[in-house]
């Protein structure tokens, strides 16, 4: 494909613009694009991990949403805004994970294919977590026992869940 402007060099810059719902596609060579005031991006930089991650964050929102989020949604602990996170690909502090939970969920799924931790739990303050994990595991076993119509075992597991849940109070 040749550049739409000079019709001599191959078109290497392709972009799609949407004006009032109408889509306009443009194909230019680097020189013509630069002449029109376009910025030539450093491809390697554009594709760097923080940038790619950043784009994960914002892709779920249209521009309107983003503006309102970047105005109101900042982390009370460290002051990071969603817009900062989407440019750096990094969060500001541990609290950001709670503040931006909704925005993070799809990102985590895309990066890891999952959004729930199943690994190590810190010993200190982690006892409750261990118990909850145990209950989750038991509930899963319960489902399996019911599916296998092993009601005797299911009853056993149900009792164990009840006992374990007492530890949480």
């Amino acid at each position, binding site marked *: 494909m040749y550049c739409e402007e000079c019709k001599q060099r191959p078109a290497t810059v392709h972009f799609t613009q949407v004006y009032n719902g109408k889509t306009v596609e443009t194909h230019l060579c680097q020189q013509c694009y630069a002449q029109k005031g376009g910025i030539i991006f450093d491809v390697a930089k554009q594709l*760097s*991990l*923080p940038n790619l*991650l950043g784009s994960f964050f914002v892709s779920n929102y249209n521009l309107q949403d983003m503006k309102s989020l970047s105005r109101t949604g900042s982390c009370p*602990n*460290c002051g*990071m805004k969603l817009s900062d996170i989407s440019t*750096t*690909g*990094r*969060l*500001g*502090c*541990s*609290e950001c*994970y*709670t503040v931006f939970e909704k925005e*993070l969920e799809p*990102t*985590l799924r895309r*990066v*890891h*294919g*999952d*959004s*729930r*931790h*199943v*690994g*190590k*739990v*810190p*010993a*200190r*303050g*982690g006892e*409750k*977590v261990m118990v*909850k*994990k145990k209950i989750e595991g038991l509930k899963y076993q319960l489902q399996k026992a019911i599916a296998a119509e092993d009601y005797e075992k299911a009853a056993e597991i149900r009792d164990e869940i009840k006992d374990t849940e007492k530890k949480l109070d």
Partner: protein
Amino acid sequence: MKADNLLNRNFVRWMAADEGPESDIVVSSRIRLARNLDLMPFSHLLDQEDGKKCLQEIEKAWKKRDNKDLLEMELLTFNQLTALERQMLVEKHLISPNHAESADSFRGVLANPDGSLVIMINEEDHLRIQCFLPGLQLEECYRRAQKIDDELEENLNFAFDERRGYLTSCPTNVGTGMRASVMLHLPAIVFSGQTNHIFHNIAQLGMTVRGIYGEGTEVVGNFFQLSNQITLGQSEEDIINNLNSITIRVVEQERLIRERLAEEMKYQLEDRVGRAFGILSSARVLNSNEAMALLSDVRLGADMGMLAKIKPYVLNELVVAIRPAHLQKKAGKEMDAFHRDVKRAEVIQERLAQTREQSN
């Protein structure tokens, strides 16, 4: 200063090839655990004041424990080290290139004398606990790293969420916060032209392949770093098992091609190894890429029993000793590229001659 070792000697623990299983192909194993202090701004947002507080907390937690591994460690903050010395830690693979760029007094490392345990402080995360061992020893690396994690956790409040796991500055590390990696020497796979095919398959399994200095570095001397990509939704054991089994498959493939080369191209192979050894033993000027390529050939020869006198740990050492910062440290002065090339040839010749004398 105990950590002098890391700056004045070439040898660190992961180079001890005779200690590690599969070390003819798996050079070293590493486990890295990312941990952050709860509510403290992540490292990239730290100013001097918070940074100092963060380091003090870590230092306090470290000093409180009487665990042997922790007692052996020494704290080196980056204002104490020159840029060259920090670069030497990068060349030994103990810290990331990014970490070495800073001269801040609240960034640095806690390291033990043999360089098997190195905690990066205020790199991308407040703590990155790392264990490095020779050969394929991911389980042992994990056991040691997680022991340190447990010890420090007694006195530090790590950022943890029961659903998201250990919270990290970058969401790619959240969950276990664990990166497991192996450094592989794969000359036969490269020679057979199967690299892309194999690495494509590895990527499908949630693993990544990189050059030896980590993210964004090129592949030199047929060395590759294989590591897990996913940190959330898999347990530490799962991640290690996955990487282990993929590594073993790659190792088998590499061995298979090596065997075929030995059968079908015996003379060509011996010729190549012999020439590489000849050049390394007598060249006067060697640039980095050439030296790495030749060392890779010699290593292949040594691993296949063609150069019985050359010990693999010597080659591990040389791969690091010929990097620019190590050469300049040895020369005791800054050098331009040409003078480094001369020094590089000298260092290699000297070391290879020593090995021959020792074995005679």
